[in-house]
């Protein structure tokens, strides 16, 4: 499929890059990326991928926009308060780039729907807050054999790494299981600098575009840690764990497990605001 005149102009700054070119821009246009969570991380990811012309963007989030989200969830505006996040995000994407098809899932990712939804996409991006979701995403990406860009943020710090299932270290190679409830503070109790979410999410978007284009060196087998207060980056090498319960030599996890505790919540009655 040839580019239209308008697309040639829209994507000209990509196409001019030797590493992208018309061929790479076509790859971007054919790519299918699922963003789990349309919040602090998901906002910049969705906006940059839409601007880049990613052909199909899936968004999964059951929540509605809350006033306290707007400090960092930049895809949602004040007028969106009370509206489903996936619909608010879908509108912004459509306004930004009509080339992009958005598939909104206004539901929670669960052990029941994860594999079905993941199988419709080529790349998965974790923009969730809580640990049951992060482990579920890691496991489902492994079973669906989909590359995953993982990230987490808290206060002034963030960390990110890429998982190529079966080929590079997974989340469980580092953290075998979720922390017990209440041990790790959530962004709701501990706070998070809004711009930090934008920065880490933008890194996630960059990493997925590299994978789509097949350029550079993926962020695998190493964690990139960012300390915003000191403006310092550190790269920590990680290795595949031969004893990993998911991707090790003798895996004990054979299927997607239902993760019980909502670890990142203190008060289960209130919603979390990351």
């Amino acid at each position, binding site marked *: 499929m040839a580019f239209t005149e308008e697309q040639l102009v829209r994507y000209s700054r990509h196409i001019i890059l030797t590493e992208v070119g018309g061929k790479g821009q076509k790859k971007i246009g054919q790519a299918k990326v699922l963003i789990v969570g349309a919040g602090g991380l998901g906002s910049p990811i969705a906006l940059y991928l839409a601007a880049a012309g990613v052909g199909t963007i899936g968004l999964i989030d059951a929540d509605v926009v809350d006033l306290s989200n707007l400090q960092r969830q930049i895809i949602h505006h004040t007028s969106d308060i009370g509206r489903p996040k996936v619909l608010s995000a879908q509108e912004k994407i459509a306004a930004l780039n009509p080339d992009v098809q958005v598939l909104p899932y206004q539901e929670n990712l669960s052990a029941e729907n994860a594999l079905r939804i993941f199988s419709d996409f080529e790349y998965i991006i974790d923009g969730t807050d809580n640990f*049951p979701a992060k482990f579920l995403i890691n496991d489902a990406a492994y079973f669906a054999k989909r590359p995953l860009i993982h990230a987490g943020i808290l206060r002034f710090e963030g960390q990110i790494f890429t998982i190529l299932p079966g080929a590079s270290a997974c989340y469980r190679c580092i953290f075998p299981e979720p922390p017990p409830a209440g*041990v790790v503070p959530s962004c*709701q109790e501990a706070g998070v600098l809004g711009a930090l*979410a934008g920065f880490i999410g933008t890194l996630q978007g960059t990493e997925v575009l590299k994978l789509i284009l097949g350029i550079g060196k993926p962020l695998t087998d190493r964690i990139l840690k960012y300390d915003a207060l000191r403006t310092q980056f550190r790269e920590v090498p990680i290795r595949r764990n031969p004893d990993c319960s998911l991707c090790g030599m003798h895996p004990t996890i054979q299927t997607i497990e239902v993760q019980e505790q909502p670890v990142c919540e203190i008060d289960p009655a209130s*919603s979390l605001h990351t």
Partner: protein
Amino acid sequence: MRVKINGKQEEIQETNLLDLLKAKNIEPRMVAVEQNAKMVDRSSLMNTRIHEGDEIEFLFFMGGGSETE
């Protein structure tokens, strides 16, 4: 002895990883510990001796992003 913790040189008294976590006031269940680029199983923290020049890395759980799921 002199070790590197999260990239920073430090002088420590503790001789095993569990004691080091205690001295740093870090709850062992909220962290993954790497010693010289190798992940240490949580159950072996107490029995893992620290040696002069070791590079120790604490990787913390971090949530963040969206609040649902």
